[in-house]
């Protein structure tokens, strides 16, 4: 009898340490602080590197770029999860940390990224109200749309852009839904009320297996690549302006082309020193009508014409292989009846829910690690994306793209998680990285505080621009 008690105690001890029985402890699951303190001494870097804040008090900054004179500019997105709308802006950061506004946008954020090329800025306008756009902004603040009508009303938006060595503007377009099916989770995001008929659009004609999915709030089931509450079609036509694609356009707005598709949220784009396009891709969440558990964020080496697996693969692993089934849940099944190709293997896998976002490559020995990619991990948004045992992300990492090995580069000293949760003053949510033209300094755009209780709570005026140099 006592042996049984001992065994039961052991089983209890082990299971209570296990995932299913422990509560979620995400980085945003914290009390919302009144303000943000900033102290570079709370950030840890490898020996020989130092970090300093360059600008503070930014509101939802998401990208940075340098002009031909080496001055740095930042975009403030104008929208944050939690349905908070502000004004999208392009600002110049002055040497004393003050900001000079250059251009403002319409109520169509988020502005998710920034690039500079041949005298003009290029901005990815996320488009939650009017659809996604690629904007060209002159140095005097004239704003023109090069591309519009991108399917950007949903969970994920128009992203990038990045300039290729031959002068094309590459950008990403995220998906409407988590895994191909519009559901109640999308109502929580807020967009389903604004655009009740919106759904994912494939990059080529596809045939579905025809499965439909239930939800509590609709009598009708919802099919994949279909509007909420409708069964959809078995055959779905593709489009260039698709969900989950990488596209490119000439700087004058002509010749829009689909480069590849099958991504989920291709947020960060960058060309390596040898001219290869790399993309960070946020992995599936455990939510909605077709939850996918345990899916990492990915780094891809992009090849033209390929399909990269969404909504049926995570990397090159099929979602029905058992590894992506949440505890006590059904195994997800394929949505597509036929797959365009076997997805390639990703370059590497980032931690689940870490939100791998902005990316840039080191090009100068003065900074070090030439050829390695530096990636901003924005950090988890648990529990909205699913449960997590410990904060994931909230750092800048370095990736050896030849073997996929990831090393931490800038992390908070005290523990894992954002500074607000740690009650410290270091990194909050790195979202973008950009080397200066000389290549000897890495600038990190820090979005600021985004807490998650019952919903997202972004805090205006808490964004920071950091600068990392090698001593």
């Amino acid at each position, binding site marked *: 009898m006592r*042996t049984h008690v001992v065994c039961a105690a*052991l089983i209890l*001890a082990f299971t209570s340490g296990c995932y*299913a029985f422990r509560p979620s402890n995400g980085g945003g699951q914290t009390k919302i602080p009144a303000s943000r303190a900033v102290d570079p001494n709370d950030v840890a870097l490898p020996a020989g590197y130092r970090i300093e804040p360059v600008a503070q008090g930014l509101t939802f900054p998401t990208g940075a770029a340098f002009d031909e004179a080496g001055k740095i500019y930042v975009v403030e997105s104008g929208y944050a999860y939690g349905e908070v709308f502000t004004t999208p802006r392009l600002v110049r950061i002055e040497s004393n940390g003050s900001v000079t506004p250059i251009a403002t946008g319409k109520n169509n954020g988020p502005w998710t990224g920034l690039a500079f090329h041949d005298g003009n800025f290029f901005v990815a306008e996320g488009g939650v109200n009017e659809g996604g756009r690629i904007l060209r902004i002159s140095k005097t603040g004239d704003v023109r749309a090069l591309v519009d009508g991108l399917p950007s009303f949903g969970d994920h938006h128009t992203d990038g852009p990045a300039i290729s060595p031959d002068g094309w503007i590459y950008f990403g377009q995220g998906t409407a839904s988590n895994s191909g099916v519009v559901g109640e989770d999308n109502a929580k995001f807020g967009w389903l009320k604004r655009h009740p008929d919106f759904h994912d659009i494939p990059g080529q004609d596809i045939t579905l297996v025809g499965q439909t999915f239930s939800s509590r709030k609709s009598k009708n089931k919802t099919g994949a690549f279909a509007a909420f509450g409708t069964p959809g079609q078995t055959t779905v036509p593709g489009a260039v302006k698709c969900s989950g694609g990488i596209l490119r356009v000439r700087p004058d707005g002509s010749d829009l082309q689909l480069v590849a598709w099958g991504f989920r949220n291709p947020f960060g784009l960058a060309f390596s020193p040898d001219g290869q396009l790399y993309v960070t891709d946020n992995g599936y969440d455990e939510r909605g009508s077709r939850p996918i558990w345990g899916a990492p964020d990915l780094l891809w080496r992009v090849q033209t014409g390929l399909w990269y697996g969404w909504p049926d693969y995570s990397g090159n692993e099929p979602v029905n292989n058992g590894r992506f089934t949440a505890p006590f849940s059904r195994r997800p099944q394929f949505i597509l009846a036929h797959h365009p190709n076997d997805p390639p293997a990703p370059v590497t896998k980032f931690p689940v829910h870490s939100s791998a976002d902005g990316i840039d490559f080191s090009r100068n020995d003065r900074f070090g690690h030439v050829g390695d990619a530096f990636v901003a991990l924005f950090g988890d948004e648990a529990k909205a994306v699913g449960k997590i045992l410990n904060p994931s992300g909230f750092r800048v990492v370095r990736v050896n793209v030849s073997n996929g090995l990831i090393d931490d*580069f800038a992390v908070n000293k005290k523990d894992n998680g954002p500074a607000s949760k740690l009650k410290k003053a270091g990194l909050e949510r790195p979202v973008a990285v950009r080397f200066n033209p000389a290549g000897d300094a890495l600038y990190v755009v820090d979005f600021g505080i985004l807490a998650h209780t019952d919903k997202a709570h972004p805090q205006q005026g808490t964004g920071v621009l950091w600068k990392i140099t090698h001593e």
Partner: protein
Amino acid sequence: MENHSRIKRILPLAIFLLVGCHTARRGEPITGPLHLSPPGERGRLVFQQRCYQCHPNGEAGLGPALNNKPAPKRLMKTQVRLGLGAMPRFDHLAIPQNDLDDLMAYIMELRKADKKPKL
């Protein structure tokens, strides 16, 4: 009496295995660069491909931390092969035996990395 002493021996071990000891944090900014043996270097590649996404640097993320748990190699190998709870299993196709041995080498070396943070 015998069961009493058995309980006294096993329960603390269970709690110890569950709670662990030392900080789980690793990574160059915290503990300095990690110097690995050749099997450890090979094992790190396996870890990156198969384990890092849930146990980044051996720390907790989606899954629990590994660095601060004194679980012996045999137990860890069994858990890799069979899975446990939410953790999927990895058979010989997913992680061949030689790779599993290298993976254990890496995890043990990671665990023994400088336990005094350099901060």
